[in-house]
């Protein structure tokens, strides 16, 4: 063994050097990432009044649950005043819903959520901030919101007979949106039956999203907590196409 190490010294030194470079890179990246979190925390805490943080009774489970229910209903009623379709993400009941004027039009069951305990133990002030009605400020998706197909009007009956309306099936939805309450949500559509649900590799999805994030943020400067949700693809697409651009979103957990 010793002979091998001596004989191929250069190769092993290369490995060690590469390891040390990657290690140094990872340590610097970790420090930068944590600094970004500290900055985000500081910014967030500045938005929250001190008197709301120290709410008496919030630490008592029955009162906390009741207050959460009251706030959810208040948000629901507030959104009902608008003529726009809006989104409700109810993590407590694992449901994402689209509603209009107080009527729930579609409820989609959350098949999987990462992190599993997304903001479950917030203080009262932070909870109010997190669950306030937020607006979508930036969004991207694998399908278009309005799938408009342009066709030229035929000049005569013969031309009209030749017009074909081909439809290309949409890919599975990945809908990523940032909200003005400093939360990012990634909704991923998955197959519709139980067999295909079993085959879903959520970790692979997370790995792909993290790789994309890594490419764009080698040394992260800003941190936004991200909630990953997997829904039935048909429901996910219906939700995505229902919610207008810059639509409103309310959370409950």
């Amino acid at each position, binding site marked *: 063994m010793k002979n091998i190490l001596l004989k191929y010294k250069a190769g092993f030194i290369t490995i060690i050097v590469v390891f040390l470079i990657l290690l140094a890179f990872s340590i610097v990246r970790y420090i930068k990432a944590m600094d970004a979190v500290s900055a985000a925390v500081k910014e967030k805490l500045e938005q929250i009044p001190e008197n709301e943080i120290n709410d008496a009774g919030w630490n*008592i489970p029955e009162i906390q649950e009741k207050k959460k229910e009251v706030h959810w209903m208040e948000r629901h009623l507030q959104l009902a005043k608008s003529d726009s379709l809006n989104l409700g993400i109810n993590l407590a009941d694992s449901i994402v819903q689209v509603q*209009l004027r107080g009527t729930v039009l579609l409820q989609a069951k959350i098949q999987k959520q990462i992190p599993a305990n997304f903001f479950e133990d917030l203080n009262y002030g932070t909870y109010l901030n997190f669950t306030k009605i937020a607006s979508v400020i930036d969004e991207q998706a694998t399908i278009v919101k309005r799938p408009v197909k342009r066709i030229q009007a035929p000049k005569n009956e013969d031309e009209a007979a030749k017009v074909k309306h081909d439809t290309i099936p949409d890919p599975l939805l990945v809908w990523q949106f940032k909200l003005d309450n400093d939360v990012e949500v990634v909704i991923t559509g998955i197959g519709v039956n139980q067999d295909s649900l079993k085959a879903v590799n959520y970790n692979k999805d997370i790995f792909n999203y993290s790789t994309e994030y890594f490419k764009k943020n080698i040394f992260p400067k800003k941190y936004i907590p991200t909630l990953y949700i997997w829904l039935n693809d048909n429901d996910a697409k219906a939700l995505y196409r229902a919610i207008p651009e810059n639509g409103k979103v309310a959370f409950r957990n």
Partner: protein
Amino acid sequence: MENLKKILAFILFLAGTVLIILVFTYFNLLVIPEHQFSKYQKEISKISTRDTTINVEADLKILNKKLDQLNKKAERLNPGNAFLVINTTNNTFELFKNNEIIRQGRCSTGSFISLEVDSTKSYLFETPKGVMTVRNKVTDPVWTKPDWAFIEEGLPVPPPGHSSRREANVLGDYALHLGDGYMIHGTLYQRLIGSPVTHGCVRLLDDDLEAVYKTLPIGSKVFIY
């Protein structure tokens, strides 16, 4: 022997490289984001340290009362005895009566085709999203063909009121008018129900159309998303 050593060295080199890459990837792609979230969640969630004594029962009573009031307000938003919900993405409908689904199935909604006539004129065949109201109900509806129906067929557009604009027996047995020219009606092309093929109206199968027609009185809400 020498060959074996070479192979062993190569395997060690390969294993080392793979291990380094795996550790690096795992740490950067999975560990760092998890640590970021944990730190963020922990630091923004600092729990109250103020020592407060409260009357839990009294507080719960107040909260329950507030919740009752909110629920009553929410009930007032109820869209009425019967209403219809249309999903234009999946081309499905749900008919509600007394807050329960009494019928659901396939429908057809706008094709999202934009028929380009010239550089200044085009028609977009889209079913509008939002809430609409049943304005009128008719049996044996007769279709008054708009301009686009002729343009789409490559035919000359007749003047308004021309007899060629009126076409019977193409909208099914019933039609419910939603305003702005949009209707819920039947179709001759039943096999296309479930696909986005209409010019903006909502098409239903004959039996579903009859159920919707009989359930929804004039003034009922139709939610389209």
